């Protein structure tokens, strides 16, 4: 199968749409005056400042911890949930519960969770942000994996069982490969949502910088308009991620061929 010229052009323009704002954001990391929206001249000052800006680096680390752990948890739990739901008879109540985390306003979940933790006297920290992020991440993973499960030929599972494969073997060898793109898409979605989530993280974070995430730090910083360090940070994150994907792509084609 080939890609037509029209499709190819659309894909190129689509990537341009996604990356032009990122180039602007990178350019602003070299902005002398430190204004987030007005260009005043070239400077490397903000990169120097970034390396001494402990709160930002610490917050970036916290964000990575929260995003990775909540993504792994939500992907495993959510995939199981999606498979479970799609292999049993339909239930509207179940569907409602699985839709709910997507439509409950963030601020409601944020206040609800903090009141709840506080009622149980749970010590807050990064772990309480993770527990909370898994809630909405599960819903997105379930939605994507369920899409994948639809039209899935369930008779293949029966055939596998008839051939004497154990439930687990069937799951690992037959079902999982079939739904893998959905699982990967769900994990990427979770990670992206978690990295950017601000309000639930703010409410469920412990007091102190040890559980401040990057979005919390950035929202707090804009009051005084200092963001070029953040742009410098994002530039580095972008370049490192980009390089990692390219290296992984070249070094280990296996991973990407499945």
């Amino acid at each position, binding site marked *: 199968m080939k890609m037509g010229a029209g499709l190819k052009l659309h894909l190129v323009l689509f990537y341009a749409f996604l990356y032009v704002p990122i180039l602007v954001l990178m350019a602003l990391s070299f902005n002398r005056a430190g*204004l987030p929206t007005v260009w005043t001249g070239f400077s490397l000052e903000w990169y120097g400042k970034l390396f001494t800006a402990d709160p930002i680096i610490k917050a970036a680390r916290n964000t990575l911890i929260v995003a990775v752990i909540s993504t792994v948890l939500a992907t495993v739990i959510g995939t199981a949930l999606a498979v479970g739901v799609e292999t049993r008879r339909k239930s509207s109540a179940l569907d409602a519960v699985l839709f709910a985390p997507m439509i409950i306003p963030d601020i409601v979940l944020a206040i609800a969770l*903090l009141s709840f933790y506080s009622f149980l006297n*749970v010590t807050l920290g990064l*772990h309480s942000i993770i527990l909370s992020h898994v809630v909405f991440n599960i819903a997105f993973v379930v939605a994507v994996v369920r899409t994948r499960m639809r039209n899935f030929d369930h008779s293949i599972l029966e055939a596998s069982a008839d051939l004497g494969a154990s439930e687990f073997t069937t799951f690992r060898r037959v079902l999982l490969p079939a739904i893998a793109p959905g699982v990967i898409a769900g994990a990427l979605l979770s990670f992206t949502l978690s990295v950017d989530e601000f309000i639930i993280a703010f409410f469920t974070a412990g007091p102190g*910088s040890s559980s401040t995430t990057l979005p*919390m*730090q950035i929202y707090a910083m*804009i009051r*005084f308009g200092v963001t070029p360090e953040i742009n410098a940070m994002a530039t580095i994150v972008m370049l490192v991620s980009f390089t990692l994907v390219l290296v992984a792509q070249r070094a280990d084609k296996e991973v990407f061929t499945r």
Partner: protein
Amino acid sequence: MTTSDAPRRTFARLTASTACALALLAGAAHADKIVISNWDGYMPPDLLEKFTAETGIEAELSVHATNEEIMGKVVAGGGKGYDVLFVSSPFAEALHNLGLVADIDHAKVPNVANLYPEATELAHDPGNAYSMPYAWGTTGLCYRADRMEEPTSWMDLLAPADDLKGKVTMLSTDRWLMGAAALALGKSLNDTSTGTLTEEEELLIKAKKDLLAYDDSTFYLKLVSGEATMVQAWDGWCNYGIAENAEIKYTIPKEGSDLWVDTIVITKASENKDAAMKFVDYVLGQDTGVWVASNILYKTPNKAAMEALDPALIESFPNMGMKPEELIKYEQLRDLGKGQKEFARTVTQIMAAQ
């Protein structure tokens, strides 16, 4: 035993055991350590380090972006884990009324003597029973003097001249947005009678058509870039614009301004109130005040600090020279209490207007 009960039981057991595990995570706070929540960059970067070196008390900073957020968090969580909070005065007042902040023992805060006498008799908390003022100032008009004449009235913002239409912004924070209309109409900032709210609503809905945007974080950048010619601004923030372009100027319209006060409070939940008071005392020292005035470009109610300011600073940023007796002429925003519901609906009506 029907099969359908099985999942329900397993589920109940799972819920119970998770709840137990969570309860086990609960623990006691560390002794001799305090947590402070403040806006990022609103106090000297080395303040906590110096404080710890001098007193042996460990201090950790937590940052919040807005009053509303930290207020919500303290109300929902009872303030547990936080010792000291920096919030604007109406929020300090509400926290006090909700019983969430502790009284301050002046014997433990000798630096209260550094405050101007005017700053110890503020309307929201006369005698500084539960809050200490940290910075204060006015809300007025910040404009490009190279593109327009000096504005004189709030109506210059609310019904701008033709060449200013689409080139003005108002603060998006509800109290200050409504405040502009209240001042223009000669009403109290804290008047929530239906008649006043209706008048303010009409005025602000009309004004909305001529606005570039509502903005309470990047308005001064819009002046610098030239997108806007005049913005409703807090004096300190106008100074950031002045720092970028000397043609930017600040003025208080003839109808007046509010007096905003950012305060320091100690939470009732604090398990280390003595340490927290030591911290408040430390912040009220002269050095912190000088840093705030020269770096944040906010006026502070700290007499000792303001008197030690470099006169050149006041020359560059004239509003830094405002005296306390001028400031206290203006009314402070107060918690609206019962009037809040009607006020909030009016704001929604304005924000939703097309």
